[in-house]
């Protein structure tokens, strides 16, 4: 049972025999699990393993079908998140839970704002929000701004501040750092360690192994809705952990890069002096057929805008872009698509998927025209295309007619990618495509990207994860303040080099604190 609990204290949270099914899917199957005070407990598992379901049960979002939950020795059942909060269980969810139209301060203190005579005290609230933001090193966010106006990474920080405001005794982070850059992650680490020292129990879910490495005391692995094993950090080798998670061994995370080509043919994508308002200040770069080019740098330096500009989303873009030698000025994604482009957008929930619709409908959403005969959609062709996509990306589904919202985050992401691969794009724009994706799937995606490149596609790849830029890309362009400040190639692509250029420092002074 609770085999390895190396904590001197009795466990703070214990789950016994917890099961949860969604229709035919067993999301959790008789899970027994515990986590103690003053420790950081990592929960690992591939996409769809049941991690989010587990923490949703713990935090009162969904109710288990069976099983028992104890907190601090007392049996509890949370009918809703509010009840869980009251008991000190606070969660930072994988899918953000911020109200975009409310201000940062309103969000951070949403549930229990400071009040005077029953009315919210705006000034006190703002002060409190500033304190909380400062405590996670995020003092640059103005609490009076609307969350809508913040970039994703800032929103994740706000979300964390919001969790802290609830004075958690058990803090759960479900891929809460997936959009954060290295510097932010460091600050969050510091905060988590402080909390740990204060005796808070912490459950930490992430697909980034180095984060687990840096933080966790105890690790638990889930697979197929079952709790597989819990062990102390260091008790298992990284390879073994991955094997526990995905049930097979991962030999090489990244596929080998081809040797740099001798004769550089005409680039597939050629960008000269790309500019857009204050955000893009004249970038030039190119991507050749068969090449994977990374976009690096701190989040929010214009990488996203580069992709959107190329995909026809932005108005008033300056500069010249050619694709395969022809001028490229799409007025809309539709026109970009016609030009052979594909974009995996930033936020799969709102930009990538039509959540209530079926998996099949989402998969074919970008290929309706080629799948039609005349005006009418060819059903047989459609079915074949869907089946092919599911197979090719190993998307874990029950029926293709289920709503795509029922898939785990990683599998949803695969649906977005598959949708675009179906269009047979020659130039693929990726906006952090592996966010929230498990190591196994990531490996598959990297291999897929390399295969596509080998097949002649040009790939422009923005990621917040430096590891993956280093592992995957033939070249990396690092952006700072709307410009490309550095182009790295081959062996020059190192973490140090990326970090240094990201902070716009000279490479000579790479040794930073």
């Amino acid at each position, binding site marked *: 049972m609770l085999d390895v609990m190396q904590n001197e204290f009795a466990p703070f949270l214990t789950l016994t025999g917890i099961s949860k099914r969604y229709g035919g899917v067993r999301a959790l199957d008789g899970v027994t699990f515990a986590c103690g005070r003053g420790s950081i407990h990592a929960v690992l598992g591939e996409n769809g393993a049941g991690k989010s379901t587990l923490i949703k049960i713990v935090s009162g*979002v969904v109710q288990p079908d069976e099983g028992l939950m104890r907190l601090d020795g007392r049996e509890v059942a949370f009918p*809703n*998140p*509010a009840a*869980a*909060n009251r008991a000190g269980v606070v*969660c930072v*969810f994988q899918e*953000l*839970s*911020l*109200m*975009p*139209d*409310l201000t940062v301060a*309103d*969000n951070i203190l*949403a*549930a229990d*704002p400071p*009040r005077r005579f*029953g*009315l*919210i005290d*705006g000034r006190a609230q703002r002060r409190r929000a*500033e*304190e909380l933001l*400062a*405590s*996670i*090193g995020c*003092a*640059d966010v*103005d609490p*009076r*701004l*609307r969350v*809508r106006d913040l970039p994703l990474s800032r929103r994740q920080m706000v979300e964390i501040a*919001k969790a*802290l405001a609830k004075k958690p005794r058990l803090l759960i982070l479900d891929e809460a750092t997936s959009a954060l850059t290295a510097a932010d992650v460091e600050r969050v680490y510091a*905060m988590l360690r*402080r*909390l740990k020292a*204060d005796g808070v129990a912490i459950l930490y879910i992430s697909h980034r192994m180095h984060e687990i490495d840096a933080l966790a005391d105890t690790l638990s692995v889930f697979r197929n809705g079952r709790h597989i094993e819990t062990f102390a950090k260091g008790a298992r080798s990284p390879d073994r952990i991955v094997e526990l998670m995905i049930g097979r061994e991962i030999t090489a995370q990244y596929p080998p890069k081809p040797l740099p080509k001798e004769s550089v043919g005409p680039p597939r994508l050629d960008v000269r002096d790309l500019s*857009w*308002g204050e955000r893009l200040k004249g970038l030039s770069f190119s991507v050749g057929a068969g090449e994977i080019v990374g976009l690096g740098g701190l989040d929010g330096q214009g990488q996203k*805008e580069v992709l*959107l500009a190329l995909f026809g*989303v*932005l*108005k*008033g873009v300056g500069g010249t872009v050619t694709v395969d030698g022809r001028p490229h000025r799409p007025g*809309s994604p539709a026109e970009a698509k016609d030009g052979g482009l594909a974009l995996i957008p930033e936020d799969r929930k709102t*930009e990538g998927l039509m959540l209530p619709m079926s998996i099949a409908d989402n998969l074919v959403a970008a290929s309706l025209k080629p799948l039609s005969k005349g005006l009418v959609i060819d059903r047989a062709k459609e079915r074949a295309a869907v089946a092919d996509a599911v197979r090719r990306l190993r998307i874990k589904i029950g029926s293709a007619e289920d709503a795509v919202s029922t898939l785990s985050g990683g599998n949803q992401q695969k649906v977005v990618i598959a949708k675009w691969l179906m269009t047979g794009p020659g130039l693929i724009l990726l906006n952090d495509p592996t966010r929230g994706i498990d190591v196994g799937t990531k490996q598959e995606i990297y291999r897929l990207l390399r295969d596509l490149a080998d097949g002649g596609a040009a790939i422009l790849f923005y990621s917040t994860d430096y590891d993956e830029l280093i592992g995957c890309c033939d070249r990396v362009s690092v952006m700072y303040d709307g410009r490309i400040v550095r182009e790295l190639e081959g062996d020059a692509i190192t973490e140090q080099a990326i970090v240094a250029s990201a902070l716009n420092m000279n490479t000579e002074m790479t040794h930073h604190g």
Partner: protein
Amino acid sequence: MADAALSTAPRAARGGSLALRLRQNAGLLGAIGLFVLFYGVYNLYHPRGFSQQVLIQNANEVFTIALVAMAQTVPVILGGLDLSVGAVMTLVNCLASHLVTGSAGEIALGILACLAAGTAFGFLNGCVVVFGRIQPIIATLATGAIAIGLALFLRPKPGGKLDADLSWAMTNSLGDFAETYGLFDGGQAPWFQPIAGIPVPLVLLVLVAVCVWMPFRRTLTGRTVYAVGSAEGAAFMSGLPIARAKLAAFTLAGFFAGVGGLFLAIQTSTGNADIPQAGAYTLNSIAAVVIGGTSLLGGTGGAVASVVGALVLRAISFNFRIFDIPPLMQPLVEGLVLLAAVSLGALRALRTRNRLELFR
């Protein structure tokens, strides 16, 4: 935890609180501009422009639609729409025509009963939405029919007689009010003179906004209304009292609509279960909300802004009494001005340079 950064001074970026506010309320500012334009022109060209009489007359004709617009605002912020506000206004109007007569005590009780009835109907709307889990727009389409039906039961044909003193006192200036009820030396008290010329409906409007809406906005429930309209799932995850907020939003809508209906009864001394009129009030309330800058998608805006929206709507038609527009062209001109006014928001869309920002 973490005190090191407690006193980090706010940085330069933080300044410009006013600028921020203006930016966040651009829609409302536009509406105020429109109102100043239409109402200013009207008064300039009116032979008795900028006078107390004209102000009183305008205040009277604006009050009910302003209240119904306030009523509409709350469910809209919640992300819904209340198609019953006009009907509830009408229902309370008919009820008032039975109850607001007799001795002072009876009148007071009658007024309370009317307000309670509007509030209760709003609460029922909330129950249908919350417990019946029906989309507000369609739930209130149905309950609106029920409200009109009840109004017709109460007043199969227009009629009733409200207290005449009350009608007079409520639809004139504070001075007339004091005179009617013998307050402040019959309105002659020296301290009273500076405010004696203010129309009573205007005072009421401000009272409702300041004593009901503004405090509500600052309660946790009120904030939850905004939160639900912004992202219901997130509000739920944040542990906010969603059911309470929804109930409160519709209840408040019922209350505001009830105040509007009560005033209409006082203003006309009668009740009238007029179906087209109820429909017109509902549609105008939506237009007022939009013109006031509140997004129909929910999460932003406010009731005061909708009052401005209602003022704009009314001020447009004021001008028909001043300018010589051929009578059969008036509906066309009015339609075009309305269309232009609601299309003002399009400027934002045309200016937006990232098209993804449009999808919200």
